[in-house]
């Protein structure tokens, strides 16, 4: 091997080719990385971009007179940047924020556990404690300089102007897995309306989240906004709501229902606006905010009298005698009776062996006094006449016709109230009876539905709506608790009248009968001197003590209010429901209780029907 006579040209060429080859290989690798593999771009983005959600403030709620019911209040979270902490007096910190030292250590461990907290970085703020109370905030704020690495962050929680109307307002809580699965708007830790208006108007109240894209360095530290915030979106605040509730009336009703189970509903017939909706027992809505949510909620959930249930919508009961008005209207419209038709009553309904029984009154009676005295026999005769009428091809057809009339008046289906949890109640049809009696049934089999007993059940809001349809003489607006969405339009369901299918003139004798009941019938206690109240009592049979029902509207001409009072286990309608109704009407129409009725107000407020009803705090 002789290298002394090497060829410089070959060597130069070799080196040139070698250098070029290396550069070409590098170019190929660059092309692979930059042009052929799109993953790197995504990796770089997920490296660098931090999409931070900006939360909008939730819409607030006013009552119909403009009083602030629900608003937002700052709450305080304690954040910790682990990397910035220095040795500090742990005990002093725990005392300041009023937690146990074991809890503090536990929380720190949870924060650092990437299984529980996947986004953990020791350079970024992590939430240590949420929703610090005002007192703890004050103490911590004063001494925060002693605890480097700890920060206080503001957020908002719901705050309530009044301790009333919990069922109407509802509450918000962290969105659960199902909420998140159903609506991609929600992320873990977001709040969502769980009941009441908070839930049914969630989409208006929540507003729109904003977003900002921040740049994050390799340690997770925020370095600024991406492209000077060009892709950021400001949050849009939720829409404010004006409720139709009159909070003073609501509070008054809740006071009257103190220590009683039941509901008071008042509706403005001309608009369908719900003026008050008391469900007793109730609770203070502010017990379900902040850190006490969990404890308060489980206490309420364990209460045997179910304070979390809105009885106005969620209970269904036999409507009792209040149902007779709907029967009278149906028979009139179907031409089964005329206002002059009289039926005799001898203390009961003779074809049924004297059952349903009736109380002492003159006999025979035409329609108006029959409503006024709440004669059972009259309406049994009426239903019998309808079911056996030759107008209809069969009893089944007659029964279904009857049912259609009931549905027209708002029974048997949810009305569509703008609050969650409405029950539909029960209005039987011929198929139902065919099934129960094997096809062999007659008017006597079903006769108790004529007086609101038996298979028929209604929800309290449906009974109240019945009063509104009579007040309006044949139509109603779907009852609703929200009067106005500020900057938004109401659903047409609440702005269009719905007609019952019964002519206005047929309402006259029924209204007359209800007026008679107040002036000289079953609910004389509702007779307010200068207001023409029209009412109807009811007693819903119950396995325990009967439920006391009073349905009314006032004044008789140009009615301003329709009301339903329902007192569970209150006995006869006249006993509790009527005086409560009287006070509510007086309060709403006159603004205050007259001196002559003060004793009644005191007496009702002090009446305890169930001693162990949970006391409101």
């Amino acid at each position, binding site marked *: 091997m002789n290298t002394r006579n090497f060829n410089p040209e070959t060597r130069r060429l070799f080196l040139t080719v070698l250098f070029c080859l290396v550069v070409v290989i590098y*170019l190929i690798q660059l092309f692979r990385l*930059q042009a052929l593999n799109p993953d790197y771009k995504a990796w770089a*983005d997920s490296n660098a971009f931090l999409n931070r959600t900006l939360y909008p403030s939730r819409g607030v709620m006013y009552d119909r007179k403009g009083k602030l019911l629900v608003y937002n209040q700052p709450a305080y979270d304690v954040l910790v940047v682990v990397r910035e902490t220095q040795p500090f007096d742990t005990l002093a910190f725990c005392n300041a924020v009023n937690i146990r030292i074991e809890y503090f250590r536990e929380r720190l461990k949870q924060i650092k556990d990437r299984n529980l907290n996947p986004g953990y970085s020791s350079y970024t703020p992590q939430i240590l404690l949420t929703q610090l109370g005002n007192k703890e905030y004050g103490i911590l704020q004063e001494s925060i300089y002693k605890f480097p690495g700890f920060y206080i962050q503001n957020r908002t929680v719901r705050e309530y102007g009044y301790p009333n109307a919990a069922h109407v307002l509802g509450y918000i809580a962290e969105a659960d897995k199902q909420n998140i699965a159903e609506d991609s708007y929600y992320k873990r830790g977001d709040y969502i309306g769980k009941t009441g208006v908070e839930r049914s108007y969630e989409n208006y109240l929540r507003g729109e989240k904003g977003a900002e894209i921040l740049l994050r360095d390799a340690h997770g530290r925020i370095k600024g906004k991406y492209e000077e915030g060009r892709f950021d979106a400001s949050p849009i605040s939720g829409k404010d709501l004006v409720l139709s509730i009159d909070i003073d009336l609501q509070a008054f009703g809740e006071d009257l229902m103190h220590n009683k189970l039941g509901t008071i509903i008042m509706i403005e017939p001309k608009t369908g606006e719900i003026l008050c909706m008391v469900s007793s027992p109730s609770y203070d809505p502010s017990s379900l905010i902040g850190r006490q949510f969990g404890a308060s909620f489980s206490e309420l959930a364990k209460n045997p009298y179910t304070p979390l249930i809105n009885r106005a919508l969620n209970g269904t009961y036999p409507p009792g005698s209040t149902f007779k008005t709907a029967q009278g209207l149906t028979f009139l419209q179907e031409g089964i009776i005329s206002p002059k038709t009289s039926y005799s009553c001898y203390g009961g309904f003779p074809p049924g062996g004297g059952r349903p029984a009736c109380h002492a009154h003159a006999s025979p009676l035409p329609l108006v006094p029959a409503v006024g005295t709440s004669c059972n026999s009259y309406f049994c005769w009426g239903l019998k006449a309808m079911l056996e009428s030759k107008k209809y091809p069969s009893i089944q057809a007659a029964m279904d016709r009857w049912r259609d009339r009931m549905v027209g008046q708002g029974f048997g289906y949810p009305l569509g109230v703008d609050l969650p949890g409405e029950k539909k109640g029960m209005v039987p049809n011929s198929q139902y009876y065919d099934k129960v009696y094997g096809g062999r049934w007659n008017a006597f089999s079903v006769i108790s539905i004529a007086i609101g007993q038996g298979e028929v059940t209604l929800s309290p809001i449906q009974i109240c709506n019945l009063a509104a349809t009579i007040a309006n003489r044949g139509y109603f607006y779907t009852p609703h608790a929200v009067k106005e969405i500020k900057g938004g339009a109401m659903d047409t369901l609440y702005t269009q009248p719905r007609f019952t299918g019964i002519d206005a003139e047929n309402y006259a004798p029924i209204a007359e009968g209800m007026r008679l009941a107040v002036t000289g019938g079953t609910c004389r206690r509702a007779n307010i001197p200068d207001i023409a109240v029209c009412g109807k009592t009811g007693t819903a049979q119950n396995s325990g003590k009967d439920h006391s029902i009073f349905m009314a509207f006032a004044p008789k001409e140009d009615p301003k209010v329709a009301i339903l009072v329902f007192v569970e286990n209150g006995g006869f309608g006249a006993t509790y429901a009527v005086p409560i109704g009287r006070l509510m009407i007086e309060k709403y129409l006159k603004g205050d209780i007259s001196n002559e009725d003060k004793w009644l107000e005191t007496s009702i407020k002090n009446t305890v029907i169930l001693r162990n009803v949970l006391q409101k705090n």
Partner: protein
Amino acid sequence: MSYRKTNIGDRIDWWSLAIYLVLVLCGWFSIYASTYDYDHTDMFDLSGRAGMQMIWILSSLAFGFLVLLMESDWYEVFAFWIYTIVMLLLVVTIFVAPDIKGSRSWLVIGPLRIQPAEFAKFATALALAKVMNVYKFDLLRFKNMASLLGLIFLPMILILLQKESGSALVFLAFFFVLYREGMPGAVLFSGFAAILFFVLDVRYSSAIWHETPLGEFYVLVLILVFALGLLYNNPKVQRQMKYLLYILGGTVVLAAFVSLFTRFNYCWLALFLNISLIVYLMVLLVKYRASHFLWVLLFAVCSLVFLYSVDYVFDDILEPHQRTRIQVALGIIDDPGGAGYNVNQSKIAIGSGGLMGKGFLNGTQTKLKYVPEQDTDFIFCTIGEERGFLGSSAVLALFLALILRLLFLAERQKSIFNRVYGYSVACVIFFHLAVNIGMVIGLMPVIGIPLPFFSYGGSSLLAFTIFLFIFLRLDASRGDRL
């Protein structure tokens, strides 16, 4: 000797100078982009790195201008003096340098910090050129070879003592120069073969096919193939070669047949064939007494020794971090959070640039400091991310153009001194380029050497500027001495 004085402005190679200026400016912008902070947006702010680099660029240009003003002979005359002074500096550095990130390579003089290792490159180049600048210089004479190797290995060892193994490796680039000047190609070939054997053995060290460790097997086969290849053209064995190949083929067929019935470690077979070849070579050497057989024999034996010492070198001589860097580069371990973090983030930065790049100052990956050392050793990331494939290939092309231009200039020199020095400049720049960019794009292990003209740092820029400008000065007066 007569001199023909020429105006330096007429004779200087404007092409090289222009490419140099473009590279330096690109580097300055890249440093500005990679250190750009939302708080520091001023390119000329002297408290920022871009501002400092501007100072370095200006002073490098000033030094470069001084270099051009010198008489061209001056460099040859003072070559050994320069070499000696720099070597002394290196020695001093070992003892007085403070420990900065584990290395003792910085001389701190007041506010100035310089790295003498950077200056050792042109000093060595000058010394090599001076030694070889002899009429009919015979590189293969022992005395010559020893002095050349001494000149190269002395700074390497001194720099290794400063714990700057990356900078020490750069001196291997001078073997390209020696190759141009007559060093046997076998040396270069052996070097490549050693690297290939090392990579194969380490890369497939844990891959086992039945009972055969694949890494060892591949290397054994390669040694066989290379040795036979080296023998192939020798006229003395032309006839026997045919039989040799028959024997080899027969053995392979036999082995394949045996393996149908029983499995065994094929390394033993390959090793047996290698040893047979070595015995055969010894027979040839005794019979013909030709040096060619000695060289092939040496190659085969050294290769076998090398193969069986790789594991020892790898596990016991290399530092743990060097081991993991090599393993990451070879794809043996994948540890994006730990040892592979730099390279992984650097690949993400470059890959996310796409074809066109994200635009100047728009690189998120580099701007947010995901890539460590992004203004020094990993500066190429910034170009890859913000300028995309177009920009990074343009930079590569510029470097290649400069290197090829320097090779062209070196070849047109009349004096050996100039040619050797020119080759040194081209080869050192190439070595830096290959190692630095290879590391950044994940083809080489992480070896911390700067990208010439780009990476932040005064010593590197100043040293490369002087390195290059001396050659431009020499080239400008190549015809002066007749």
